[in-house]
């Protein structure tokens, strides 16, 4: 039940954030320093999520099949593959490495 509660709270917070841009007077959000910081924090969150999804196992840092998945994904992105292809290649790489008995 408490997971349901967090799902709803998180979803409603995100809806509220979208509405803010339509309802709030513009000065606050038009501040360039604020816009710059928001853009940089988006990058930071995604970079941190790449690291935690790749190396974290609970509170331990581990190297396993996920690192191979990320390397393959980076190669695909370098070659300008679309999002869905990158994700599928990432899954396939991790699955293949595990099928070979590692990670």
């Amino acid at each position, binding site marked *: 039940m408490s997971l349901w509660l967090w799902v709803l709270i*998180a979803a409603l917070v995100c809806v509220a954030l*979208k509405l803010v841009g339509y309802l709030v007077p*513009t000065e606050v959000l038009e501040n360039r320093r604020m816009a710059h*910081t928001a853009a940089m924090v988006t990058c930071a969150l995604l970079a941190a999520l*790449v*690291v935690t*999804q790749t190396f*974290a196992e609970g509170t331990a840092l581990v190297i396993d099949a996920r690192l191979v998945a990320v390397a393959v994904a*980076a190669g695909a992105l370098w070659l300008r593959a679309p999002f869905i292809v990158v994700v599928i290649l*990432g899954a396939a790489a991790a699955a293949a490495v595990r099928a070979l008995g590692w990670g």
Partner: protein
Amino acid sequence: MRASPSVRSAVRQGISVGLATGAYGISFGALSVAAGLDVWQTCVLSLLMFTGGSQFAFIGIIGAGGGGAAATATAALLGVRNSLYGLQMASLLKPRRLVRLGAAQITIDESTAVALAQPDEPAARAGFWSAGLGVFVFWNLATLGGALLGDVLGDPARWGLDGAAAAAFLALLWPRLKQRQAQTIGVVAAVVAAIMIPIAPAGVPVLAAAAVTAGIAWWQYREPPHVRSAA
């Protein structure tokens, strides 16, 4: 009255973006179920939260054993950019009442990008609505499909779904790394997260990275010269 060529082109673009982006809702649905959410919770996230980065972050932190509060805080921080998009789209669309609620809900990366890429205002409005509604419809259908698929797949690691999650975040990050400063921020965030993983509960390393880099970005910011002289 026939729509102008620029409007028709915007609608075509919007629908193709909707199809392409919507399709990866399949990966969200499958990953969400693998992270321990049920099919309904997964679908509610796509219908109500409806902003991909936040959705992936929420389920990623829940799946890693993080708390609901950390997952919610991370999803919210990733959703802040939609406020800035809303600001730009509000002055373009000037929507009223219920339409405003609908416009706000489909104000995301893709609809804003398609709108901003158009040569005139009618095309920008057409691009916004077609991309936003297109992504909404296909993203939610694909989420349901992915969640049902994830349910029958069983052990997520065997299918490499944990690798897919890491790949998905890298793909979301990639197009934002064009500027030198974004690259620096990304490296700092990655290092902070790695240092924090062994010493903090799941979810906290990501928030710590956000806090540190927000400080850096805020203090490092310099107004461009033409803005300073105009002030």
